[in-house]
């Protein structure tokens, strides 16, 4: 009975879905146990049950062999369970110490005893080599550092069962390595870790065992060392997946987009993009590889016209569009699949047909003299929905909100591609989608390229970039580190460039 946690046949239903269907998970003391599954497979729900955020409909949880009832996160805390959430739970204008002691304060006399808490945090920080300053404000420290604050928060509460929810999504490759080291140190001190992830490489790198779930069902728990990456992927998706998109070789055509020494300020007012130059040609997909927050947002926002360039120029089809409005750029033939489809892509309270005319409602035939022509709008929507396989219960009159993530993304892709744009800027186009939808989107992007259009793909998923790009531009700290041909490079090289290490020779694109 060496399990510290045993979740037995946990079942949790939500209206319309079974999020967890009798899932069993056993965590050994001192192991790193990966929980693997696609988006929406039920990983988060399962862990929320363990952390007391949800109550299971059936099933039992044993902790160190004893049956427990975890009614809320407080009880989880008392039982020694801690969780680092994907979205950090930190108050931005509190200090590190204040965040850590929140809800757990001790007082000295009448006031909160900040000093002895800070001392203890300092001590924990040194013990685990976390290098956290207890007196810094959260808003003034890096994302990687914030994650360490979350880790100390668990340690401060004496947790020994630690749950990490997709911890590497926000980190640089360097920080990922450091995190892995920290996790190993934690294990060495006798803690046990559950690592929620969908990244196979991380599992191979650090986990001892892995539990795979798919659509709410337990597939298997396997030893990581004895299982190949391909096999893990197959278990996760439910069929053989190659993660390779079919793509014929093509010679690129004329340059369609050219960025010349572009510099852009970010929200904090400092340069987020520095002297960035890039060319994109007809018939090619150029991937922008980089860790989140290294200038991609500034690059995209400036390209589509949401942000003004500080210096430099953008040429599109030989036209200087640096100061053109968003609408004029769209008219010129730019299309954009935004990173956050709910925030920037769709108007969720509008119907599908209303969303499909979002860029063209003011043009004939959809309107004349400022009056909308609903017949034409219906026809247009039926056509796009048919061509792009957007599935909605109530057809084009359904609100965009009612669609699944995959169908929402298809609607956006349809809206953008239907206008036959010369350049498609796709930002994280497959984020949060299941493998089927991912494959569909990739196929469409390659199809654009084959039709002689240009595609600029901005993604945080290195695999995606390597899979479908023709050329890859690496960005670090707002600077272009280098451009390489996709078939002449590998993950290691790109990883180094993403970390800011320049390559000896920058390859010029071959004509």
């Amino acid at each position, binding site marked *: 009975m060496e399990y510290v946690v045993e979740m037995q046949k946990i079942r949790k239903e939500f209206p319309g879905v079974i999020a967890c269907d009798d899932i069993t998970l056993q965590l050994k003391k001192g192991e790193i146990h990966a929980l693997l599954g696609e988006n929406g497979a039920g990983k988060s729900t399962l862990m929320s049950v363990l952390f007391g955020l949800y109550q299971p409909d059936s099933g039992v949880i044993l902790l160190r062999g004893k049956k427990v009832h975890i009614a809320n996160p407080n009880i989880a805390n008392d039982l020694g369970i801690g969780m680092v959430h994907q979205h950090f*739970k930190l108050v931005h204008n509190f200090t590190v110490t204040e965040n850590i002691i929140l809800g757990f304060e001790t007082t000295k006399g009448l006031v909160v005893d900040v000093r002895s808490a800070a001392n203890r945090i300092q001590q924990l920080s040194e013990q685990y080599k976390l290098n956290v300053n207890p007196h810094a404000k959260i808003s003034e420290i890096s994302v990687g550092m914030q994650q360490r604050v979350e880790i100390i928060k668990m340690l401060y509460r004496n947790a020994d069962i630690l749950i990490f929810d997709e911890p590497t999504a926000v980190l640089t490759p360097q920080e990922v390595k450091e995190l892995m080291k920290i996790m190993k140190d934690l294990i060495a001190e006798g803690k046990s870790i559950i690592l929620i992830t969908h990244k196979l490489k991380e599992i191979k790198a650090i986990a001892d065992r892995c539990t795979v779930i798919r659509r709410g069902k337990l597939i298997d728990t396997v030893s990581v060392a004895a299982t190949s990456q391909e096999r893990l992927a197959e278990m996760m998706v439910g069929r053989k997946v190659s993660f390779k998109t079919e793509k014929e070789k093509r010679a690129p055509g004329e340059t369609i987009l050219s960025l010349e020494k572009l510099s852009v300020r970010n929200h904090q007012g400092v340069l987020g993009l520095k002297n960035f130059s890039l060319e994109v040609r007809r018939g090619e997909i150029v991937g922008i590889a980089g860790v989140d927050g290294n200038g991609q947002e500034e690059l995209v926002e400036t390209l589509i016209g949401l942000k003004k360039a500080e210096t430099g120029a953008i040429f599109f089809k030989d036209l200087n569009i640096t100061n053109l409005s968003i609408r004029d750029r769209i008219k010129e033939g730019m299309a954009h699949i935004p990173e956050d489809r709910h925030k920037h892509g769709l108007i969720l309270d509008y119907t599908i047909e209303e969303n499909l005319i979002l860029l063209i409602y003011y043009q004939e035939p959809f309107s004349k003299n400022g009056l909308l022509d609903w017949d034409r709008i219906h026809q247009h929507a039926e056509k796009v929905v048919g061509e792009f396989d957007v599935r909605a219960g109530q057809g084009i009159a359904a609100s965009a909100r009612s669609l699944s993530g995959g169908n929402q993304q298809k609607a956006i892709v349809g809206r953008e591609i239907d206008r036959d744009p010369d350049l498609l800027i796709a930002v994280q186009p497959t984020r949060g989608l299941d493998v089927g939808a991912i494959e569909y989107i990739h196929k469409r992007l390659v199809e654009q390229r084959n039709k002689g259009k240009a595609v600029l793909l901005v993604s945080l998923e290195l695999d995606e970039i390597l899979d479908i790009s023709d050329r890859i531009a690496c960005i670090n700290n707002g600077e272009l580190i280098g451009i390489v041909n996709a078939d002449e490079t590998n993950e290691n090289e790109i990883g180094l460039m993403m970390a800011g290490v320049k390559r000896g020779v920058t390859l010029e694109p071959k004509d």
Partner: protein
Amino acid sequence: MLSIILVIFPYAIAYTIPLLITALGGLHSERSGVVNIGLEGLMVIGMFTGALVISQLEMSFPGTAIWIGLLAAFIAGAVFSLLHAFACITLNANQVISGIAINMIAGALTTYLARNITGSGNIQIVHGLGRQNIPVLSDIPILGKLFFTMSYPTTWVVVGILIISWFILYRRPFGLRLRACGEHPHAADSAGINVYLMRYIAVMISGAFAGLGGAIVIVTYSGEFNGTAAGLGFLALAALIFGQWKPLGILGATLFFGFASTVANVSQVIPALAVIPGIILKTFPYIFTLIALVIFSKSTQAPRALGEPYDKGKR
């Protein structure tokens, strides 16, 4: 000039104090994440309760009746604010609409009840609160004259509440938790804090303070309930924003607004003050608040989760 200041100072303080206590109430509510534009209505509740209790008791218990009335207003405000808390916290209703409903219900309901009681809709109290010199301190030159001469005891009660509020908000665990609820309720929740309970308490504090503020108006300078707080609650809201959701900022803002209004009110009596047109004095708290909003638009100190209903399920 000094003599004019000495003359208007007690009036300005008298006008400032109800604003200050009401804005402090708003501070608690908004720091916990709940917008409270119902302060105006909560003041009306306090005015009504205060005037009613005092008018009923002052014959039998002269002196203590006023303090019983203030306490009753304090409690009535807290109880009435439960309507707002229930709508905003339990039902996730739009906090602005709920606040407007509070204002409207308070004004209409109290007038309705007052009419049933007195027939006219007004409730008068015979004796207000007396002014007193503070022994020893009032003998300090100038400062003694300004602050410690002819002051209402309620002024010192409110100043005491201000100090206690500051201490609790910034030095006690309760304050840390309350502020966390207004900035990042999910963080508070995951730290084991009951966000709903904290917000309920905060809204009730705002109701209690605003109720007290309304009753202080009755026992100091007004003496009569007539169904409205004449925009004082909204002025307190402006002070809360102008003071950037901080106790000392609010103290400064309310003093500022209190003086402006007093100068406008007495300018007909004191010719030296008539040089500044009343319209400017009366509108400037609002204009300044707008300007402050523009200036602070990039660096606002407003609680981040202000106005957002807390939904436990969403993460």
